[in-house]
């Protein structure tokens, strides 16, 4: 701190601290405290706020634990977000390895250029694209019918299928880039040494490359899981009648019931879920928060 004063003087240091304090207090800490506080208060008409009925209780959380439907949706959201995370890893790992160790250096910038375009196209449009493709009379069914692979149109948007397809497409790049960065920092000599010593390719991956890419995998898993569980667009556009996502219930409380208190309790549950996931990943992969957020 004294170092800052020496270099930039009192005024600038004060400005740095004020800006940071505004961010952390007004935009991060206090809003979350209010979310927490509100989740314990009842939903009341304006004139009864602060009145005798305005007391803290666990009622909003009990609403959740007393509703089998809501708990069911919560559990399915966790299961399918984990599945999406796993699929993204399986798709992305060979690609990350290819891009960092096999692909010739001169094509890398072009590859990145091609991958950045879908990354920067907004999520709503990416799920909309699949909404068109997966339609019953859409291009996917007509292509497969035309090729004679299927005999009748497949109802793609059924159960959680549409949601999983959409989420994997939307978030797979958030898995690819961190793993690529991690493998990139591995000395190729280590791979060659393993091969020279007679290690089959799968053992080289298992013992050398995978352990080295752990921080990248952790980072990718956290991002994909958090984005999937918190996604609003993909489940709304690609869900069927039988697949509901937890964010849709939060939306119902906030917009249809206008009950912000129960809504904040549900949002807080989502926050807890993501926090637990981050801590589990940090524990399992033995990485620090600074490895994940890069």
């Amino acid at each position, binding site marked *: *701190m004294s170092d800052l004063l020496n*270099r930039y*003087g009192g005024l*600038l240091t004060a400005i*740095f*601290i004020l*800006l*940071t304090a*505004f*961010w*952390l207090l007004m*935009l*991060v800490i*206090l*809003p979350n405290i209010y*979310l927490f506080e*509100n989740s314990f208060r009842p939903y009341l008409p304006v004139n009864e706020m602060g009145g005798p009925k305005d007391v803290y209780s666990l009622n909003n959380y009990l609403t959740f634990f007393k509703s089998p439907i809501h708990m069911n949706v919560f559990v399915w959201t966790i299961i399918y977000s984990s599945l999406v995370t796993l699929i993204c890893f399986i*798709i992305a790992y*060979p*690609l990350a390895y*290819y891009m960092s160790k096999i692909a010739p250096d001169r094509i890398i*910038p072009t*590859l990145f*250029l*091609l991958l950045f*375009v*879908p990354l*920067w*196209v*907004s*999520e*709503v*449009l990416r799920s*909309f*694209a699949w909404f*068109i*493709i997966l*339609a019953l009379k*859409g*291009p996917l069914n007509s292509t497969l019918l035309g090729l004679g692979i299927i005999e009748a149109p497949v109802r793609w948007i059924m159960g959680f299928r549409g949601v999983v397809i959409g989420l994997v497409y939307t978030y797979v790049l958030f898995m690819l880039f961190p793993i690529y960065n991690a493998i990139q920092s591995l000395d190729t000599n280590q791979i060659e040494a393993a091969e020279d010593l007679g290690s089959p390719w799968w053992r080289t991956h298992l013992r050398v490359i995978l352990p080295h890419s752990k921080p990248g995998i952790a980072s990718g898993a956290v*991002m994909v899981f*958090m984005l999937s569980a*918190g996604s609003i*667009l993909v489940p*709304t556009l690609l869900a069927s009648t039988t697949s509901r996502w937890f*964010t849709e219930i939060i*939306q119902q409380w*906030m917009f249809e019931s206008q009950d*912000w208190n129960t809504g*904040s309790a549900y*949002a*807080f549950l*989502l*926050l807890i879920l993501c926090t637990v996931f*981050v801590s589990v990943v940090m524990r399992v992969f033995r990485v620090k*928060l*600074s490895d*994940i*957020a*890069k």
Partner: protein
Amino acid sequence: MRKSNFLFHLYMVLFLIYMILPLVVMGGAAFNDSRFPSIYPWVGWTDRWFIELWKDTRMWVAFRNTILVALAVVAISIPIGTAAAILINSIAGSTRTVLYSLMVAPILTPGAVIGISTLLFWNTLNVPAGLHLSVLGQVSFIAAFVMLLVLARLQSFDRGLEEAALDLGASHAQVLRRILLPHLYPAIGAGAAIGFFQSIENFNVTLFTRGTYDTLTVYVFSKVRTGITPTINALALILIAVTLFCAIAYEVRRRAVARRG
């Protein structure tokens, strides 16, 4: 080894097709003269969806709002993120760990949670929902991206330069403006670009904080939900073209710099 490399090349190509083909399908449907957006069956070429889009005043309002929000987000996030990076770079120990965790937490928080907490907090301060709250909600996590980029750049900074400048009689403001900031400009520029794009495509935070205002993502979302027409595809095609143009411009410039350097 040859053969497995071939399989890897093939896999990469398939992945690129998987990433890009849906966008082509969506863009292509913008030219199809069918009321429901699709490329099959192909009814015939038309440009009427572009004309309808052009005439849609609600789209123009949403477009203007999106740009205004994005500019505001960048204007607030850059000073905050840079200041936070300089601050955290000068402290060590457990204070640093706590501050760092607080700073990156918004990146790992679902957008819906950020949106709802921002709405509740400012509502208690009697600030109603609206685009200004969307800006604040987005800043809370976009400032974190800027902080991370600037912090990474600070690692390669030679602090001796600042000491030399101070010894030679430079004022504190001069040290910041002439020595430190020029070194950080690449990171700040990248932060501004990322922040701008992140803000434009943000949906989750905006949905809860926007009040009754539209941004482009919200506009597209509500169109898709209530009666879709291929005007959305026309808009999508334009946005993809703009993205592609920016990406190519960036790449061309990068190659030019690389050749010179």
